[in-house]
């Protein structure tokens, strides 16, 4: 497959679509003789002539409005707004007219037009040649918004946009134009609007991004691969309508979300994506957004611009933080843990009649393994105790005295086979050993769930019973 830059892919799409469909025409500032300030339309005037490649006055309102009228007549105008920063003069025609045309006439009139524009910073363009504008236009039902990040998508999505029966805004990140090169399939390969792509598969965290930030996110994800953090990077490709299926499928797997965009934070696309994930109930920890801070503009000075735009280092730091919200020693909590008993609060074990000493030792081991069960809860915070002080309740003749860090209840052969232990004030767990029948007994555990997770109860019981079994069978271990 050929390697092209993003700008070469855009140009190829324009060229091929104009050759294929005589209704397609280009209009914009500097698009004809100059071939566009980024050279997206270089050579098109020579090939298709001044009737179809048109230099327009510096009038963004008029360019967009004329495109609406051309589209209403059945032509396929592709208008270029030179910099996305200038597109707001065209907003009335995009949001007020093109977006509503089909709906307000119940399909009598339609508006199959494309506006391409170069957005994004990172090249010292200052506040009026660097902005990201997607949040304004993704809030306009009736239009579609695409934001390719690779050469193949730049071509495939532009082809799809020109053929789409509705108005499409194509946001091309100007830094990708020459920086990003990649394979582009030969021939007429359309990338459907509304489909995201998995740019990098992973299991631990889902990054949702697009444009130049997609490439920065990939760099951050690759850097973390050696550190046991397996990041999935989803290239949104279409920003309106969102590909909810691909997004939610990824999040159902990773249950952790980081949105990365160059646009400013508040009311940005990240807010919608986080809401989408929250409403679907798929996240196990709060989502993280990496975005430009809420500033009126992107400054031009090297140091200042670098300070406000997200980059692979800031994305990496956010991902590490997000990954760090899990227990130490594993990048991610496994959904299935074979060491946890199936019924995690009650377990039946082999136990001799005389077991008090071994049970106390095992309880200390279990408390060390799961400190949450050897703690005290208060609304001001949870305190894990440094020492294990077992408060023993051996029946009416020898009741618990209170004041320990955990309670062990064991009424011996006179007690019930299975009973619920009560968690005492100042503690987070209580363990009860039932009466031993035929060398077996039930062990039940109660916890204060404000301080102890359900799975931790299982781990606690597993540690307790494993330790008891280990203490009972030293000879077997030696013999083996």
């Amino acid at each position, binding site marked *: 497959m050929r390697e092209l830059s993003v700008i070469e892919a855009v140009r190829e799409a324009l060229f091929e679509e104009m050759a294929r469909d005589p209704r397609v*025409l280009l209009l914009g500032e500097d698009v004809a003789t100059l071939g566009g300030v980024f050279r997206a339309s270089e050579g098109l005037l020579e090939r298709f002539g001044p*009737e179809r490649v*048109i230099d*327009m*006055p510096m*009038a963004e*309102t*008029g360019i*967009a*409005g*004329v*495109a*609406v*009228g*051309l*589209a*209403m*007549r*059945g*032509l396929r*105008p592709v208008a270029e707004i030179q910099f996305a920063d200038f597109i707001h003069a065209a907003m*009335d*025609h995009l949001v*007020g*007219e093109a977006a*509503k*045309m*089909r*709906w*307000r*006439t*119940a*399909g*009598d*009139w*339609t508006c199959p037009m494309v506006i391409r524009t170069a957005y994004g910073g990172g090249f010292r363009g200052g506040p009026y040649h660097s902005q990201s504008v997607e949040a304004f236009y993704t809030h306009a*039902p*009736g239009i*579609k918004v695409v934001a390719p990040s690779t050469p193949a998508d730049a071509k495939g999505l532009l082809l799809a946009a020109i053929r*789409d*029966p*509705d108005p499409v805004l194509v946001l091309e990140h100007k830094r990708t134009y020459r920086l990003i090169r990649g394979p582009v399939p030969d021939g007429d390969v359309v990338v459907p609007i509304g489909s995201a792509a998995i740019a990098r598969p992973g299991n631990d965290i889902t990054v949702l991004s697009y444009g130049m930030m997609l490439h920065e996110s990939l760099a951050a994800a690759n850097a973390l691969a050696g550190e046991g953090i397996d990041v999935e990077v989803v290239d949104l490709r279409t920003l309106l309508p969102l590909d909810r299926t691909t997004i939610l499928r990824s999040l159902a797997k990773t249950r952790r979300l980081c949105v990365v965009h160059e646009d400013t934070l508040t009311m940005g696309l990240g807010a919608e994506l986080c809401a989408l994930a929250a409403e679907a109930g798929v996240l196990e920890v709060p989502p993280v957004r990496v975005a430009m801070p809420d500033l009126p503009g992107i400054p031009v000075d090297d140091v200042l611009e670098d300070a406000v735009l997200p980059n692979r280092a800031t994305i990496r730091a956010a991902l590490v933080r997000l990954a760090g919200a899990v227990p130490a020693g594993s990048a991610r909590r496994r959904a299935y843990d074979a060491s946890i008993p199936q019924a995690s609060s009650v377990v039946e074990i082999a136990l001799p009649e005389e077991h008090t000493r071994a049970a106390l030792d095992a309880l200390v081991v279990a408390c060390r393994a799961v400190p949450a069960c050897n703690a005290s809860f208060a609304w001001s915070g949870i305190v894990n105790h440094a020492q294990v002080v077992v408060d023993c309740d051996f029946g009416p003749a020898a009741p618990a005295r209170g004041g320990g860090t955990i309670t062990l209840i064991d009424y011996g052969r006179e007690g019930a086979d299975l009973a619920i232990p009560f968690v005492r004030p100042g503690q987070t767990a209580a363990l009860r050993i039932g009466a031993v029948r035929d060398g077996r007994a039930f062990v039940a555990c109660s916890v204060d769930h404000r301080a102890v997770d359900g799975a931790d109860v299982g781990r606690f019981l597993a540690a307790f019973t494993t330790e008891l079994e280990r203490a009972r069978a030293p000879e077997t271990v030696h013999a083996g």
Partner: protein
Amino acid sequence: MPIHPTHYLMLRRNLLYTAMTRAERERAYRALSLARALDERMWRLARAGRAHFAVPCSGHEAIGAGYALAMRAGIDWLSPHYRDLTALLVLGMAPRDVMLHFFSRPSDPNAAGRQPYAHFGSRRLHVLSLQGPQPNHCSHGVGCAWGSKLLGDGSASVIAFGDGGAQKGEVHESMNIAAVHQLPVVFVVHRNGWTQSVKRESEYATDSLVARAAGYGMPGIAVDGTDVEAMFAASRSALERARSGGGPTLIDAQCVRFLPNTSNDDDTRYRDRTALESEFAVRDPLVRARRLVAAAFADAVDAENAALAQDAADWAEAQPHGDAQTVAEHAYA
């Protein structure tokens, strides 16, 4: 390419009495009379609370009739002004369809119950869909005219807007682009001197807008917009120029807005209705058009149109409201 010499043409009635055939004059009167009948009925119904919104065209009737009669229905294209009821009628919109639009019923062919009255539009009639923010349709009309040129179908476009709308950059950009590319289009400004409550002196500093044509290198024609024959003659010459590749023309059509801006407006707060009524007595386009036809014809047509307006209103009001299940339809293809 030499730019067409800019000229101002003040068309006088005595030059124009031969402009229309008798059949055309009768057709014009029929349209003006029907527009007035519908307009009056809509005004009363809106004021009575039976519909949401009326946008009267009283005083503007001759302007739309003039260019619509000079257009080839179904071939040429109109980006309408919101007081263009007469033009719509001449181009073929039925009174019942007007009333469906007025009552905002989903069967309304203009806006399907989604836009309120006076947001005209019909692909069948070659009338571009009109929007709320004025006058965004100017550049749509320019794009439409550009389409005619590119497709080479010989059609021309009329773009109508008010003198309030003319103060927006939209009109400047549209006229400039049309002139640069010599597009087959006629710009018509319905110049009634009011932008809702804001008087002419607060909107623009000249007595008329016709001189603006010179700034774009296009001919400008100042017309008495209450004179349907003058309007027809000016439109016909401008449309002929457009069709023959001569590029755009601006027609400044001065008229009187007889009623408040809309049924939500109270014009007694900003203008003297007594003076207005005496002006309207001599400049009512319908009264003036009546002189172009036989009195008996006019009387018969008025009676016929009163009945048509009543039938259309009664019928349309009885049509069903929308089905909430369909509100999301047509958001996308």
